[in-house]
């Protein structure tokens, strides 16, 4: 599910011209979170990004980091600072890694807008709020990715109808 959401967010930004991935054309970037299940490839091709989990294929650059650093990146923390503090490992082209980090940072800003394309504004707003909550849970938790995964699962398994949506139909 994380792959799907991430892929949708990034491609939405590309389509709307918010980000330009031409510099990343034909690059495969492996992104992995240490001590967690998340290891993905960002395949940048044909002016779009595919997020895949098949990590047997060669990549141009590999980025390894801890989950809490992952969220720091989403909040726009400087990559150079994180590198200096040994919080992130990069094997390969650092410039390519920086470009990807820039994309991820922008994806966070427009999360709510992105979701509204698929779910409608009201539901997107609710999910956007939930996402912020998940991030807080993840930040406070000793196992942030698991907490995030559980939160997302709860939302999908037992979605609640927004009160505003209910009122709108009356």
């Amino acid at each position, binding site marked *: 599910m994380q792959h*799907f959401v991430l*892929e*949708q967010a990034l*491609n939405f930004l*590309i*389509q709307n011209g918010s980000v330009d991935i031409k510099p990343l054309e*034909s690059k495969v970037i492996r992104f992995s979170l240490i001590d967690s299940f998340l290891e993905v*490839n960002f*395949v940048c*091709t*044909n*002016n*779009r*990004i*595919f997020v*895949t*989990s*098949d990590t047997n*294929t060669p990549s141009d650059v590999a980025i390894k980091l801890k989950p809490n650093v992952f969220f720091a990146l989403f909040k726009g923390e400087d990559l150079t600072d994180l590198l200096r503090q040994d919080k992130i490992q990069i094997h390969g082209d650092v410039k390519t890694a920086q470009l990807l980090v820039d994309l991820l940072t922008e994806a966070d800003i427009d999360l709510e807008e992105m979701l509204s394309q*698929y779910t409608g504004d009201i539901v997107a707003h609710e999910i956007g709020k939930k996402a912020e909550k998940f991030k807080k849970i993840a930040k406070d938790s000793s196992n942030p990715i698991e907490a995030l995964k559980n939160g997302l699962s709860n939302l999908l398994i037992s979605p609640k109808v927004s009160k505003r949506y209910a009122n709108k139909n009356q």
Partner: protein
Amino acid sequence: MLVMILETTQPSKLMKNTTHFGFKEVATDDKQSLVRGVFDSVASKYDLMNDVLSFGAHRLWKRYTIASSNVKTGDKVLDIAGGTGDLAIEFRKKVGESGQVILSDINAAMLGEGRKNLINKGVFGVDYVQLNAQYLPFEDNTFDCISIAFGLRNVTDKDQALSEMQRILKPGGCLLILEFSTTDSEFLKKFYDFYSFNIMPKLGGIVADDEESYQYLAESIRKHPDQETLKDMVLEAGFGFCEYHNLSGGIVALHKGIKT
């Protein structure tokens, strides 16, 4: 535009003399006409039967397929075995006026139903081509996305069809295969087997007056490669990446291949 192109090139390799048609072993040359017979028979009730048999779930599976496609404005999309055009309608919305969507099917009756369906829904600007997935009549590197939903299992030589799809996709193009697959859940498997072989053909008899075709449907699903096998086939066809996502516990899987 309606174009009829069934075979434009010769097979790249010799096929075996026999193949499966459901649980039956038939001459390879006969399978295409047997499948055609099935779809000629069910074409007019196809949408209704999909809703009845899947309890409407096929609409969710297709919606997920569309969302996974990453198709955008200006893209060229080919929908193979597109039947009544569910995917083509959504692709048309995504590609806009500057894009192109081709709805194709080997079966003229199904393609006719698709065309009628799209016109009834006010969807214009879609091209219609009657074709065989094993011999795709397009230039190399033409499409940004190719989809085939619930069609691959009816193709006689799947490897050749996948190679053809790989050939006509642009680098970075995406292949989406939505197809019945294999569930790991023992409970679901038992329920699904009972439903497929006891309920589904009966419903086919009652609603579409064609029990036999729906018996074939159940059998053809069991003969279709499982998730991992199909993934290997996609990679073998030359795709750089292939992943699959199980839907409804693996009853259906969406394979996504990327040409690199």
